């Protein structure tokens, strides 16, 4: 049974003829609090076969204008349309916003004399116009000349929507490109591509190489392998490879994770392979090699300082943590998947075969873990040569510690 929508007295019957042609849908499940349906909600309900997309939204908005010459209730209709934009997936489409602004009757709300200009002329409509522009701003849509012309036609040059438009034109370009680590608006849907994007973002070294150790199998795979195979994508830079090759096999390396990384509105999880800090006595002192090239210096140590009195260093010991050797993003966070990652890493880092690997996987996603000297569990003695032995010390952290 189609719900009883409140009809205004002067509403033309033609506006609701779509209601009779609709197949009555199943009753909506009750939610608390029960919301009353807005007057034009049924205009947005599509026939069962029709998909909710830009074309149907545009059609609905145009239908409102056609059936309702005097455009009664346009404010309510516009508010409802703004709410429904997200369902139809058009909230970032400038043409749709211009079409929505087109619903306003033109030239009626412009102030004609000084008294109308002093007092906010047609405040409800101006508020509605401001709401449309505010939703554009929230979704990062930049208005264009057509929007400006529409606003002038509808509200006049000295109105509040026009003022908001000017402010948008001023501030949105100022903040458009301030992020030093921009993330594209349309994130890739493929998890492997998303992992590659995330790993490239996290690793500051541009010469790092991304390797896909395992691809997720397509859904219609009927082979012997497990169809729910997770993807494993890893990244390692040449400096990290060299550091891992130099690493002392007597000390273990840890696989820590999962840690969360947000890319716009998607959260991905990554694991890292790191070792502890060497105690001060074991740290190697870097030797400055002899200058073997007379044409240009091989090491250039340029500083900001203009003289001896310039000191731009902070008087604090920064937090030091152990070196990170590689990072990976995997579909599953269990030890078997990460073991496959380690095996894949061994191909490019043969030294990893001799080094014991300790898995420290947190039970839930929490903050980045580093070892504190008191809590570390000692790894078993290094394995016999030629064999890789994984010490499976899995410590379940309680919640967010």
């Amino acid at each position, binding site marked *: 049974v189609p719900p009883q929508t409140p009809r205004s007295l002067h509403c033309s019957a033609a506006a609701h003829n779509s209601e009779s042609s609709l197949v009555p849908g199943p009753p909506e499940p009750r939610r608390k*609090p029960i919301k009353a349906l807005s007057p034009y909600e049924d205009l947005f309900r599509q026939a069962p076969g029709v998909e909710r997309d830009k074309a149907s939204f545009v059609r609905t908005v145009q239908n409102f204008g056609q059936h309702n010459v005097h455009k009664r209730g346009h404010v309510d209709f516009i508010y409802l349309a703004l709410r429904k934009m997200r369902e139809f997936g058009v909230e970032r489409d400038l043409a749709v916003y211009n079409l929505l602004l087109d619903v306003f009757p033109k030239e009626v709300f412009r102030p004609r004399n000084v008294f109308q200009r002093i007092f906010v002329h047609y405040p409800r409509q101006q508020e509605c116009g401001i709401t449309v522009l505010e939703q554009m701003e*929230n979704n990062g849509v930049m208005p264009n000349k057509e929007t400006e012309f529409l606003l002038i036609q509808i509200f006049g040059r000295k109105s509040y929507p026009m*003022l908001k438009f*000017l*402010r948008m034109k*001023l*501030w949105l370009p*100022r*903040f458009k490109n*301030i*992020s*030093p*680590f921009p*993330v594209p608006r349309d994130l890739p849907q493929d998890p492997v591509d998303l992992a590659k994007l*995330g790993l490239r*973002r*996290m*690793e*500051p070294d541009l010469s790092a190489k991304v390797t896909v150790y395992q691809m997720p199998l397509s859904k219609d795979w009927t082979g012997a392998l497990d169809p729910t195979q997770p993807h494993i994508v890893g990244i390692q830079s040449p400096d990290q490879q060299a550091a891992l090759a130099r690493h002392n096999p007597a000390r273990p390396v840890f696989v820590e994770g999962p*840690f*969360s*990384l*947000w*890319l*716009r*509105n998607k*959260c991905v999880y*990554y694991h*890292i392979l*790191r070792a502890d800090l060497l105690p001060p006595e074991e740290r190697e002192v870097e030797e400055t090699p002899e200058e073997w090239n007379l044409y240009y210096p091989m090491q250039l140590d340029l500083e*900001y300082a*203009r003289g001896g*009195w*310039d*000191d*731009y*260093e*902070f*008087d*604090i010991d*920064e*937090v030091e*943590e152990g070196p*990170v050797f590689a*990072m990976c993003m995997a579909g599953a966070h269990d030890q078997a998947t990460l073991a496959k990652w380690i095996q894949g890493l061994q191909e490019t880092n043969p030294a990893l075969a001799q080094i014991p690997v300790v898995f420290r996987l947190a039970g839930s*996603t*929490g*903050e*980045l*873990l*580093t*070892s*504190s000297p008191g809590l570390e569990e000692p790894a078993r003695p290094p394995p016999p040569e030629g064999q890789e032995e994984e010490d499976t010390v899995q410590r379940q952290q309680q919640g*967010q510690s």
Partner: protein
Amino acid sequence: MALIYKLLNGTYILSKCPKRSTALHPFLGIHFADYCSSSLQKPEAAPGKASSQRKTEGGLQGHHQKEVAVDITSPEEKPEVSFDKAIRDEIKDHFRRLKDEIVNHWIGPEGRPLHEVLLEQAKVVWQFRGKEDLDKWVVTSDKTIGGRSEVFLKMGKNNQSALLYGTLSSEAPQDGESSRSGYCAMISRIPRGAFERKMSYDWSHFNTLYLRVRGDGRPWMVNIREDTDIIQRKNQMYSYFMFTRGGPYWQEIKIPFSKFFFSNQGRIRDVQSQLLLDKISSIGFTLADKVDGPFFLEIDFIGVFTDPAHTEEFAYENSPEISPRLFK
């Protein structure tokens, strides 16, 4: 704090003012206005009075009416701490701080010799190396307006950094007037001098803010508040964005003070002016990026330094269309 409380209640007993709530409340309102409800409690000199100083959800007024009705000089639960002794200790502490301030004024600004202050080019303002460093910060979320975000602050591993973590929820509270919600903030407490006077930071020799943080890729907003004694100034702040990279590496963020834009009551104003650095009250970090989910931010330290390569005075011009009165 306990001293002021006793003085105020002393006035109540003396004057027997029937409208005690209105008499006390503005006084206390000014005093407590900058303490938001938080999950931390500041350690008090008199632990027995901590319960009366703590902010409850029910609001200041109801709480004080309950407290004032009880006999003030009732014996404490812990017999070894006496209220009067705590008062005396606190008075002595305040006078000592006053003496220090006067003596330090002779040595130089803030007790350091002038040549050191003038030549300084990098200064660590907040560091997180112990629990007492965490007490300088207050943590708020939109729970105060009825939302569902949670935020907590604790020391990170090895007591070497602070970790701000929680969950953001942009579900709007059903109070009929908010259509959007979802924010979490960490604000520094205003530095206090003797007798709880408000002091301020003087960063006029520096021109860049330096933060060593490790985030999870979310964009944060850094807000700087100036001297908040005047009531209009309480809602004004200068802000800019801080983009975290995510990942296991520590990130150094340098934000020049010329990039901060002015906002009042949460809205960017048309008339923009430079952030003046001589009376900074507090700094804060806000997360409000409309994405639901858990977040974390690890902070190593916060400092200010002079970037000699940065010569910009102010990054934003005023527009003659929006604010024509400036261009007459």
